[in-house]
């Protein structure tokens, strides 16, 4: 209520100032012309490579034929969307996508936060640097390489992991050949690859915390655990929120390549996600319109999620993307 009255009260003055404001904008642009000039390439980049291609999404509403193009293809309305929702496998694939996204959010998202706090507690600078560099490294490996390594490590006959399990009397498990392990493998490989790299932003935020806060806490008798809980975490919260919101926006975009390289006949049932389905149906079977519809659906869900997340975050923590 109070918000409404506030905007209502502001409105008249806003209208009065309108012409004035227009002038202001042009004057501001003129004043900061160099900055605007510098930003032209990136603005052009977004227009040419992001906004104009968005228009291509109309093929989701057409029966697209590459020789007829956008103009000549027949319009079919929401037929492709209907077909998608009717598809017998749609629920299974959506379910996989959501579940894998959820696991990723629960397990992979907090991992860099924990690692960053642990790294922050290291006292020996040389050791800290070495550890940091080592944990960054997997990020620069391609998924194909990681998949190859995983196949070797997880192999039931020659894999290290199964030999380790064997020491505890556990029979070898065929991790990549079993529906019940594939999601764990997918999320786990992501954690291994990206946790270290994900700490960069958190470490930067940690470096910015005023050391006097810790000194004061020590004088008040807080131990390290208390200090972490009361100082470090609250100080990290804005960074966590922003990254969380960005993550939410990509909730359904688990990524094509990292899943594709792990899939085989024995784990597709639980491992296939929307991205891999789009690849199979769209690029391999050349159903461009249908898969554009699936992709569009995915983007819209992502947009709704990020807007809702942003709204709640602004309401509760005051942090938001925009």
């Amino acid at each position, binding site marked *: 209520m109070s918000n409404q009255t506030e905007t209502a009260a502001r409105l008249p003055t806003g209208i009065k100032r309108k012409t004035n404001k227009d002038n202001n904008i042009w004057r501001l642009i003129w004043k900061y012309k160099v900055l605007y000039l510098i930003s032209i390439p990136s603005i052009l980049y977004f227009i040419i490579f992001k906004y104009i291609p968005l228009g291509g999404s109309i093929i989701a509403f057409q029966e697209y*034929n*590459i*020789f007829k193009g956008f103009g000549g293809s027949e319009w079919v309305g929401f037929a492709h969307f209907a077909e998608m929702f009717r598809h017998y496998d749609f629920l299974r694939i959506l379910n996989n996508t959501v579940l894998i996204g959820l696991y990723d959010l629960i397990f992979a998202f907090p991992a860099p936060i924990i690692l960053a706090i642990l790294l922050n507690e290291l006292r020996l600078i040389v050791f800290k640097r070495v550890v940091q560099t080592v944990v960054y490294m997997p990020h620069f490996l391609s998924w194909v390489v990681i998949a190859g390594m995983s196949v070797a490590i997880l192999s039931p006959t020659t894999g290290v992991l199964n030999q380790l399990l064997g020491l505890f009397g556990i029979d070898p498990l*065929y991790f990549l*050949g079993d529906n019940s392990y594939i999601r764990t493998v997918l999320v786990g490989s992501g954690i291994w690859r990206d946790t270290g790299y994900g700490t960069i932003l958190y470490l930067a935020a940690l470096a910015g915390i005023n050391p006097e806060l810790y000194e004061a806490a020590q004088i008040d008798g807080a131990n390290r655990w208390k200090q972490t809980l009361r100082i470090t975490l609250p100080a990290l919260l804005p960074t966590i929120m922003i990254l969380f919101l960005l993550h939410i926006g990509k909730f359904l975009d688990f990524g094509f390549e990292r899943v594709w390289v792990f899939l085989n006949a024995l784990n597709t*049932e639980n491992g296939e996600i929307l991205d891999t389905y789009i690849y199979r149906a769209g690029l391999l079977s*050349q159903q461009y319109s249908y898969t554009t519809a699936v992709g569009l659906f995915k983007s819209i869900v992502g947009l709704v999620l990020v807007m809702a997340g942003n709204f709640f975050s602004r309401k509760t923590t005051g942090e938001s993307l925009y």
Partner: protein
Amino acid sequence: MKKWASLALTCMLAMSFLAGCSGTKEPAKEEAASGGDKPVEAAADEVTKFSISLRTLNFGYVEKSPDINADKWVKRLEEMTKTDMDIRLVPHKEYEQKMVQMFATNDIPDVVQGQGGTTGKEMAGSVEAGVFMPLDDLLKEYGPHLLEKIPKEAWNRMSYKGKIYGIPEWLGNPSRRATWIRKDLLDQTGLPVPKTVDEYLNVLRAFKKLGVENPYMGRQDFKYADTFFGSYDVFPYLNQFEESDGQVQPKFMDSDNMMKALSTYKTMFDEGLINKEFATINPTTFKNTILAGKAGMWTMNANELIQWQTQLQDTVKDAKLEIIPSPVGPDGKGGYYLYGDVARSYFINAKYKHPEKIIQFFDWMVSDEAEQFFTYGVEGENYTKEGDQINYKQPTDSQAVDEERYRQAFLWMVQDTTYNKGSLSLTEEGKSLMSVFDNTLANEGRDGIEFDPRLEAFKKNPDITPLSDTPPPLLITHMVKMVYGQEPIENWPKVIEEWKSKGGSDVLKEANERYQTKEGVFLPRK
């Protein structure tokens, strides 16, 4: 002072750029000038310029070449045929996607290389859309040798609505894949060359006793590991339809035989005759395992025989590879699926001004001069002549072998690709390989009814759609699970029902309708 320095630097940079650009252009100019020295007026209109897209086919020589258009063999070919080609390579792995991209962006070369027929996926409906020109009249006038040498089956594949649209590179013997065995190991077991499925299993068991890690080399999705599906004639592949009780249906719907084939694999799996992890064995591991001497029997393309033999002997000195007749099933036949009659094909852009020149270019490809050039290279450099006798130095180091293969199989665009007769006849192993093709492989292989253009119903659901050598994903899942014992084999009829319910019924309906009208239907060759 500083300003001057930076200005000078900029100028220098600009100069070097210009120099760099003109540097690349200069040789071309020179060549044109020297070429035009003798017949000044003729050279201008005699050299045919055209662009052509070619798939790299995984050829090391092609993919490593910094600029294929500057390659010496391309230059020689251009010289001999009075052409100036602008070769645009299409990456082997993304061939289909790149081809579609090419059509979608309307950046279509004058000559486009396809694979097989006129309506394949890679052509993306371009022939139907009128992108290429019909060639019948042109062929009659300018390509008499092509018409004479290329078999009718191959021309049939290049026809769309009664008109020929492409020039095929043909395959005289479509039976390409073969059953390979480590003859040295077989001799150790004391067993004779196996013939039936049971005899094969016994040999595999004997291999296991010898301590061979992979008696039968498995691979994911049964690709290149489908020997026993061939024995029972149940390949779940694209061109494997058959007529049963007046109905056209995919061969995997023959439940009895399919279950027998699956049981064979299950037995192999249970007894450890096939790797327990075959569901995750990729092509690289497959090849490496075999070349490390850890496999007893497997499937590979016969033309690789000599190369693999050499590579295998690097690790296992006494290894001896042999191609044996594939295991026969209840009908006394066996073998692998047959390849298409056409290996590569060439389409001419409807907008191109001088199609007759291109027809002549391809017509030259089937001449004796071309055969000699592509097989042996250039006199004095690659071979010497004594009277009529050609002394060809067969290359030994891998780079030279790559170059030879490139010349014989990539650059020679129109030929019978079964094998290169000229170079195989030079050695003993080559001669025995030719005999494998002519005697063993020619007598085996499984073919089925084929639909080209492919059935519309297949386009809708990738899950139920087989590829030329892979079963539909839906079936692979069940097949692998059955072999792993995660699902009973007796469930196969249910799997068929599932396939039908997910769009298979439409496939059957369309297949039978098409079969009745005989439109785009190719009957089994064997």
